[in-house]
């Protein structure tokens, strides 16, 4: 949120409401996933075999670690340990970028193998495997956009801290950015098993 609220509780409430909307935005896609997965369990199993479990697991570790660092950054700010705060925030942004780089390699490998929406290769596979990859690209794509937005928001908050607009006493902006980041993490924690681990 771009506000500089005097009312801490209002700022937190606004952020939580916003997070509800994010959950429901993804919720529509999860609903689609549930319906199609229920209808085509075998095809979903076969399609998931071509995903790279190692890259997916690595990204899961990266995101969970970044959730820890952002939490550490918040408590560092609350205690006035500015150097730690910058360090942990920088670390979080770094991990976010690492996630995206990883994702880039994963997606380019897929595209290289001719797996992308509407591709020639997919046309020869069973229909429902197309659905699996359609959902895979939609959901991890939307999530990737959120990671990018999260990295931008966290960098921006870092800038605000440097300018003295977010301080030890007025830390709610960082806390809200942290909440957003946890949500991004949480969505991935659901995406990872649904795409990489189902069988």
């Amino acid at each position: 949120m771009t506000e500089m609220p005097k009312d801490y509780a209002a700022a937190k409430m606004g952020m939580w409401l916003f997070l509800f909307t994010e959950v429901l935005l993804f919720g529509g896609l999860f609903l689609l996933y549930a319906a199609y997965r229920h209808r085509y369990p075998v095809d979903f199993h076969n399609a998931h075999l071509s995903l790279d479990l190692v890259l997916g697991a690595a990204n899961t570790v990266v995101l969970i670690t970044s959730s820890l660092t952002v939490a550490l950054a918040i408590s560092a700010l609350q205690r006035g340990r500015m150097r730690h705060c910058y360090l942990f925030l920088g670390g979080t942004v770094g991990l976010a970028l690492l996630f995206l780089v990883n994702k880039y390699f994963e997606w380019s490998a897929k595209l290289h193998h001719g797996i992308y929406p509407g591709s020639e290769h997919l046309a020869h596979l069973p229909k429902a495997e197309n659905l699996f990859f359609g959902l895979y690209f939609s959901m991890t794509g939307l999530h990737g956009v959120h990671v990018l937005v999260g990295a931008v928001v966290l960098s921006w908050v870092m800038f605000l801290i440097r300018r003295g607009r977010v301080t030890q006493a007025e830390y709610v902006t960082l806390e809200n950015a942290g909440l957003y980041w946890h949500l991004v993490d949480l969505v991935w924690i659901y995406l990872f098993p649904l795409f990489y681990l189902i069988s």
Partner: protein
Amino acid sequence: MASDDARKNFLTDGTGLGSWVFSTDHKRIGLMYLALILLMFTAGMTLGFLMRLKLMTPGNTLLSPQTYNAVFTLHGVIMIFLVVIPSIPASFGNIMLPLQIGANDVSFPRLNNFSWWLYVIGAATALVSIFTGSGAPDTGWTFYVPFSSRTTTNVSIAVIAVFILGFSNILTGLNFITTIHRLRAPGLTWRKLPLFVWSLYATAWIQVLATPVLGITALLIFAERVLNMGLFDPTRGGDPLMYQHLFWIYSHPAVYIMILPAMGIVSDIIPVFARKKIFGYGMIAASSLAIAFAGSLVWAHHMFTSGMSDTAVLVFSLLTFIVAVPSAIKVFNWLSTLYKGSIAMEPPLLFTLGFIFMFSIGGLTGLVQGAAGADIHVHDTYFIVGHFHYVIFGGTGLGLFAAMHFWFPKVFGRMYSRGKAYLAFWLLLVGMNVLYFPMLILGLMGMPRRYYDYLPEYASWNMVSTFGSWFVVAGILLMFWNLYQGVRHGEPVGRNPWGAASLEWETASPPPTHNFPTEPVVTHGPYDFTPGTAHD
């Protein structure tokens, strides 16, 4: 009059375009919303007028078939997404919510200004989709796949506009919920909230919880068209029915976004002009929440003929009947409030009674479609067009007009001509019934909606319906003219010309920028008309 002091009010505090479009004052933002919404309404009305003119006689007249498809799509998109959904919350919600709860502004004023800008950007994007690419969208406002993913018209940009407008809506809802929780004046407990605030609260929750599903659905249409995603494409395993589910998970609750605030206005207006405490305050407030909750569980009643399982049809039909109960509770409470009241038939009350009449017809015809068996007969006929317009134009529309006549003296500190207001009302009410009742009959006779042409046996009722549209347009134009004249030359009024008891009437008309000179302390309820509490 005490309010005629030299203090600047919110209309005169700051001049120039910049002081309006970048204003964080909730009253200015609300007024700008109202102006744009009425502008869009006029555009949508013109399209509707054209459609009726084309359908006046059967055959190939006035518009080509493709143009006709574009016109009914644009009429729907403009009216739904740019007019009716934002209508009351964004305009009078913004203006009145902080005033009614004794606050200086909403919780996030800058975010409020941002949502207005999103509305402007969304409206501009919708305009771009009309005038660029290979033709205006021709899918109907529901953007059903597979047609919407294949048509060559400019659907991609239109759904992006829908996404942006949805985001604007979400931010308004988020702001209102936080404001109602955090900024009530001392003494203003939940049980003393004006019922308009209660209805905005219920509406805001739907805005926050349902709109994101529309957002993702709009993005998926975009993905189908631009990225060739195939999630709804049967040739690649997708199921168009899933699109319909996602679409209605938002779009059915959205009709409660449209109607609930109007019900709140009715609940606020009736006690003032019956000089009587509202009957069943708790039930009206609770029924708003009940409608918001139950209304989120009935979406698939739009899909009875789409090939769902019989179990799903029965469950959704039952739930649909349940959602009618809280609406009926409201109607009975309004009538009980009027009973033995000291009624002053001022224009706001007249519009309100018009609302109850039209909404009752609209609500009862809705049940015909909610019944799974009857729906098979009337599905996708003019019956549904008639029903929907009774609820939304006769309900939300008249509710908005009632609010415009009720709060006009508060916002502008002037009064419009009552005589012209009465005349406009009767033109509208007669016009609407002549326009929409024949649609109910045509629907029962089997005339399908959205068709360019019709069989000769439908000709006479179509002609009658078109006559009605002329009365409606005349009524609207007269009403706008009357209110405009009121803004310019109306007789100045004091802070509380109606003798109402809620907080917004305690400050000057028009209100000063910061609403209240000192923070008000609430000692009496919003419908407490005992002498000495609410007089000018």
